[in-house]
């Protein structure tokens, strides 16, 4: 195996360790069914691997990963319509186990989480992307790089997206 390939594999493994959880969360915003989502996560990872050899540092690694992940997500939305799954259909196995001892508190937290996810999945794709990037903690500059818009535009769209999310959460029980 060549040195270049080995270096790429190491870089790829590091990216997966560092961004694996973020990619899974992002995939959650595009796909509610666990088995299909797992497939989507693998597709995103594969796309990152295929693009990694051509990555010359034109943008930050974080931006690179989020760009690929969102673009794969968009293609997925087209291939698998309708993308949105009603709240009650989100699989029980999707809920991570909460170690807290109080079942009522745990149920309330799970309910809030499911509500948030369902609301995000119901948003138009561009709003969904803004919200996901915001929740992942990207700066306005990074969001602008991922989306291909100006920073001023990011601020305007983010406000709109947050309002839409609040409305969507308000409509949900």
């Amino acid at each position: 195996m060549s040195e270049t390939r080995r270096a790429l594999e190491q870089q790829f493994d590091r990216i997966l360790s560092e961004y694996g959880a973020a990619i899974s969360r992002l995939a959650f915003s595009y796909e509610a069914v666990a088995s299909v989502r797992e497939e989507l996560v693998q597709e995103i990872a594969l796309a990152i691997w295929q693009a990694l050899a051509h990555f010359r540092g034109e943008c930050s690694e974080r931006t690179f990963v989020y760009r690929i992940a969102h673009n794969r997500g968009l293609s997925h939305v087209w291939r698998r319509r309708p993308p949105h799954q009603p709240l009650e259909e989100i699989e029980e196995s999707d809920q991570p186990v909460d170690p807290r001892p109080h079942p009522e508190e745990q149920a309330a937290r799970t309910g809030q989480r499911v509500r948030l996810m369902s609301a995000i999945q119901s948003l138009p794709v561009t709003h969904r992307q803004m919200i996901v990037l915001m929740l992942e903690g990207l700066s306005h500059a990074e969001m602008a790089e991922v989306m291909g818009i100006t920073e001023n535009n990011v601020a305007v769209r983010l406000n709109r997206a947050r309002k839409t999310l609040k409305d969507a959460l308000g409509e949900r029980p």
Partner: protein
Amino acid sequence: MIEDRELDTWRKQWSSVAEPPAEFQRKVQQRIKREDRRFVLGNLLTVIAFLGILIFALFVRHQSNLMGTGWATGICVLAFVSAGYRVWGLRGTWRPQTQSTRAFVELWHKRVAARIRLLRISIYVSLGWIIFCAALTAANWTTIGQGVKAHPKDWVEVLVACVLMQPVIWCWAAWLRRRKLAELNEVKKILDEMDGKSVP
């Protein structure tokens, strides 16, 4: 301040949403190996197909009759022109995944539009191919006519197969075109959303 608290709450809920699937890295590695094998196999098959066409063309040309040379040349020209046009049609739209979302969607739009054009042209090409075959047959009717008289059943079977193949190809192309048009509409919708035209 309320806004920030709201964001913090959302972030807390969001960060506990999902962990990577079990054995994530191992599964990805397996998938990469599978894709690598598929890539090598795909390239190998393409090379074999093109070499096959060339060998077939040389073989038929060796038979040294006008009909055989015409067929061989026609098939070679068709194969190379189709492959060349496909590459030309999709130029400038490679590796869209690493682009920003805006650029990705614009490239997606370009690719789908190019595929629709390609499908439209393939219909014309298939019509052209029929005309070419008919002209070739007419030009060589003195040779072919003897074969038709000797084995009429075989020739009728070939003719029926050719006639039935065309509607099948056209229906498939029409179905694919409808699908691509739907995809184009979807991409336009996303572009409109990005321009703030259709978002509430």
